[in-house]
């Protein structure tokens, strides 16, 4: 167990800047998730901590000790690779025993090794595979063995690189639940890299969002979800993506989509040039039933349903609001069909206001449309 600090970490591969001036401080025992799209520098970050990548600048500090010039095998970190990196010529048992036999993770008698391996394989449900070779395993099983090779040994830091990425959706959800329990069980400082926002939100004590090698935001899942620093983070979290509409201030009102969206201009925000970008998540929008009215204070958007897709109990509606497509996810019994004119409503607290900017460019979040941030209210 240990704290991990990254200070001004930079690494370039030739002309490509993988990470730039990365600063992070990870607490002892924390389960810390690094989230970002592919190419954001997530794996480089992990490998820098492991010492597998020689950084150009900055330092990694583990348990208060600078890791500059410290070889990987002296860092006492364990890593699960995205590619699994299981030794093909060794059985599952020997793969798991490998870190216990090196002599650098402690001394283990044959009985100790057996006991540790039994414990971890039972937890991961792979104890019937010990005699097999990696090539005889499914991807899901390989993933578990790779995780097992990490968990079988004590370490200051566990580094997990997309450990669920190659699993099918069902297995991924199941493993996510298991990982959560494992994380809580082992209480070892863990750095977990993923591009899947659901994994990040479900697992992380805190999340760091990376973009093109730079840190965009660090916070608890709640903070990241409720108060993303910019539209990039807002878009990175949530499927379908957050709806963004360009808006203008006039007569104390903030209007978008040709007036179809109309809300009181938030006076606590500095809307430069009288322009802004509004964001609301598909799940925060509600579909008003015929005859019912929206709760007081909610913003109401009228539009025509262009597309209705059934996702099981929920349905995804693509609604044309003043010429802009707005995605809504609502109960399938909402009763709207393609071609219907519907009213959508969203609480003011769930409307995010971003700075205006050129199309396709991400801009910072100024705040919520409501005077008080929901994060402060609810947490």
């Amino acid at each position: 167990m240990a704290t991990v600090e990254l200070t001004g970490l930079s690494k370039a591969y030739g002309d490509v800047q993988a990470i730039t001036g990365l600063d992070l401080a990870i607490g002892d025992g924390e389960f810390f998730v690094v989230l970002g799209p592919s190419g954001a520098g997530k794996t480089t970050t992990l490998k820098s901590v492991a010492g597998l990548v020689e950084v150009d600048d900055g330092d990694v500090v583990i348990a208060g000790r600078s890791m500059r010039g410290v070889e990987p095998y002296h860092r006492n970190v364990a890593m699960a690779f995205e590619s699994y990196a299981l030794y093909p010529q060794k059985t599952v048992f020997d793969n798991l025993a490998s870190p216990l036999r090196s002599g650098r993770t402690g001394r283990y008698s044959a009985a100790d090794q057996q006991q540790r391996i039994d414990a971890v394989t039972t937890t991961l449900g792979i104890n019937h595979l010990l005699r097999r070779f990696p090539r005889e395993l499914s991807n899901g099983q390989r993933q578990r063995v790779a995780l097992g090779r990490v968990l079988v040994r004590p370490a200051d830091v566990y580094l997990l690189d997309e450990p669920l990425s190659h699993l099918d959706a069902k297995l991924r959800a199941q493993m996510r639940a298991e990982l959560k329990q494992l994380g809580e069980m082992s209480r070892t400082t863990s750095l977990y890299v993923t591009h899947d926002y659901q994994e990040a939100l479900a697992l992380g004590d805190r999340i760091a969002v990376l973009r093109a090698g730079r840190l965009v935001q660090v916070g608890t899942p709640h903070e990241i979800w409720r108060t993303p620093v910019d539209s990039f983070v807002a878009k990175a979290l949530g499927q379908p993506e957050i709806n963004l509409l360009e808006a203008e201030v006039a007569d104390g009102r903030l209007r978008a989509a040709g007036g179809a969206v109309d809300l009181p201009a938030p006076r606590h925000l500095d809307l430069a040039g009288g322009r802004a970008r509004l964001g609301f998540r598909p799940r925060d929008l509600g579909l008003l039933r015929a005859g019912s009215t929206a709760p007081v204070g909610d913003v109401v958007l009228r539009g025509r349903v262009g597309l209705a897709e059934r996702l099981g109990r929920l349905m995804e509606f693509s609604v044309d609001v003043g010429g802009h497509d707005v995605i809504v996810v609502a109960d399938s019994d909402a009763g709207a069909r393609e071609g219907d004119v519907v009213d959508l409503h969203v609480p003011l607290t769930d409307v995010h206001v971003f700075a205006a900017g050129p199309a396709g460019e991400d801009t910072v979040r100024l705040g919520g449309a409501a005077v008080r941030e929901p994060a402060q209210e609810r947490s």
Partner: protein
Amino acid sequence: MAKELKPGQRRVTAGSVVADLMIVAWFVFSLFPLLWMLLLALKNDADQTSTYFAFSPTFDNFVTVLSQRGQDLTSVDFGQAMWTSVLNCVGAVLVSLVVGVPAAYAAGRWKYRGSENLMFQMLSFRFAPELMVIVPLFVIYNTLGIFDTKVGMVWVLQLVTMPLVVWILRSYFQDLSPELEQAALLDGYTRIRAFLTVALPLVRPGIAASALLAFIFAWNNYVFPLILTDSAATTVTVAVTKFLGGGGQAYYNLTAAAALLGALPPLVLALTIQRYLVRGLSFGAVKA
């Protein structure tokens, strides 16, 4: 109309028949000298210059080549030359492996200033004509006193075998994911142990293929032993030609028998590890 094909079956078309015939023709053309040599090796002295296929075959030539009479004719002990060749080639291959395997690993894993130039330089030993360096080598060998010694032959033959070993094995190492060794580093193993316990066992097929190829190339080498040895370290390639006689009578049948004997060791080796050989010959172009 299209009949379902069983595994291994293929559709017979006019084109495929023509292609097959062309391949057969090529085989006949290229294998005929070999056949002729085999026939020649079985002919007695009287028949050796005849072009008849009908003759009474004899194995006497093989016996003669290996006997005292063969030695009297050529002043070279053919059996001894075979043994010298074995020692030379095994020596050269061992030297190439001991030095070449780590070199190939380094070349496959790390890029540094001039690394490609270094690799190309090594490859140039393969395609530069040996005759280019043979005269200076002759002088150097005489000066150093390693002319006509096995040490000298191993030394020069590893120039032939080393580039093969390094180039073939480099491609094998490049095919290995570096994350395997990285995993070993994090398991607590030093770089050397990661190399020895993780990377090395995985390229064993490559080591077998490159060692075999290197052996064959060293075995077949003619120019170096021709110039750099006399009687003490004569190799089989040079010994074979002695039966053609230096100005005296040429024993074509004995030459053929000797050549066949000389071709046996690499042939046997090649057949035993044929499986790896194809991959080795393609320089690892087939990615695993």
